[in-house]
């Protein structure tokens, strides 16, 4: 059972605001999707486990210094920047 409180709590964890007037309809649609997801609980539990596709293993390389992007390039897309840093104001 998904409650309004669940949705409010999850929204907080997800850093999303849900307007008061949308809370009921969102709770209901979440409930419908969770009911659908619940069908897996009728599946027999097998001994299978899943780690990854294609038996992947960690890929290592030597820790070498290589050319990378300049901070100027990296900051190009920032909404705000100052003195070679991302700028985060406390209020606007």
């Amino acid at each position, binding site marked *: 059972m998904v409650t309004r409180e669940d949705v409010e709590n999850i929204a907080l964890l997800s850093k999303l605001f849900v307007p008061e007037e949308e809370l009921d309809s969102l709770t209901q649609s979440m409930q419908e*999707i969770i009911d*659908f997801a619940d069908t897996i609980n009728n*599946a027999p539990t097998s001994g299978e486990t*899943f780690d*990854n596709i294609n038996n992947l293993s960690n890929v290592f390389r030597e820790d070498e210094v290589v050319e990378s992007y300049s901070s100027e390039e990296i900051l190009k897309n920032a909404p*705000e920047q100052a003195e070679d840093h991302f700028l985060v104001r*406390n209020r606007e």
Partner: protein
Amino acid sequence: MGTIAKIHEMLTTKQCSCTELTKSYLDEIQKSNGELNAYVNVTEEEALKTAETVDKKIASGEEIGLLEGVPMTLKDNLSTKGIETTCCSKILTGYKPIYNATVWDILASQNAVMLGKTNMDEFAMGSSCETSYFGGAANPFNTNHVSGGSSGGVASAVGANIAAYGLGSDTGGSIRQPASFCGIVGLKPTYGSVSRYGLIAYASSLDQIGPITKTVEDASIVFDAISEYDEKDSTSKGCMGGKTFSKLDNDIKGMKIGIAREYLDGVRDDVKEAVLNAAEVYRSLGAEIVYFDLPALKFALPVYYIIACAEASSNLGRYDGIRYGYKTEHYNGTHDMICRTRSEGFGEEVKRRILLGTYVLSAGYYDAYYKKAQNLRGTIVKAFNDAFKHCDVILAPTVPMTAFEMGHAVSDPVETYLTDICTVPVNIAGLPGVSVPCGFNAKGMPIGMQLIGKSFGEAEILNAAYKYQQAAGENFKDTKWGVKL
């Protein structure tokens, strides 16, 4: 039909210059994009610049590669250096990547002419292209119908001949389903065979880049070009199954084509009939049809939505209004700033999937949903491995229905998720799958069938698909739109 081989021949025999060819595609985009909404960004200047380079090469007598000078498009979640890449989301408006996706690096180095970036469901979350911030892309067979999703823009553009081919991404069917809806070919390669570097992530263990093309031959040409090992993607394996082009025309006599009964459950009659007719075509080509059961498929869809949303909730945590993209205007404190940015920047479906993903990963629900889904993912992988002991490839519908009317998908999320029922198992198991046109329904809308292969078995499914196209070429039709070649 504007296939890659045809365009290559036109360029090398100087029937037209690459600039003339590119201009004719750009003109057609100009004429039809208002109605189709396939492109969200047309990169005319860059396209003509590349075309000029190709023309100079031809004029100097240099040989050109098969993909050189061929006008194409990229889904808007593939990073293109200096060219806006939005995932069709408000939250990425104005974002210009500082690097290229590896697939685009490969094609750009071969002088592929990119006409522009194409429409998609926001962050690839959707099956109709309608969750796009820019509105949905229309189906070239009937513009009241959806193009499918999430790579709807690529499929619409290729189906309408306003691109010769395109690259999309497929997390739960996003290449194969729109290809099926638009009467063209879509290949979802094996997980790891094409580098995902520069593909903006939705669900990293399921995402895979692949071609959307007019013909099976074109899918093979593009797949061979982009399936290279890439050290920038830790899950990259390269083309382990070998290149596919030389094997397209192999004899399929004795090939075992499996049909899992579960794949036909709940499928509309016209689609089922077209797929079973295709099985008859295979029988006439000397292949053997074997029926079997795959009961694990029953749980594939909820398993997919749990895993995909869980991964999405984590991947989309990076959108905070600080480093790139949209940022809210008025706020009080950093928490408020991030929450407002995300709430204003993400669309409804994206928010719903982030919330669902956070729910299934949160304390108290993790074991019941996420862990159980991962356990069932193992069961599904094993079921496919067992199935391939009895057959070489699996034949199934791509989608249980044909393209639906616009506006239909938005009403009921769970019903919309059901359209993915035939495509998601392939992503769960990391297998290759190709959608191939196999007929039309009474209203003239295209029907697609899907050929599923063993891990890294692209050559085998493309071989089977190619043989089918040779025998049933009438199902590969041009639309009234676009460039006539």
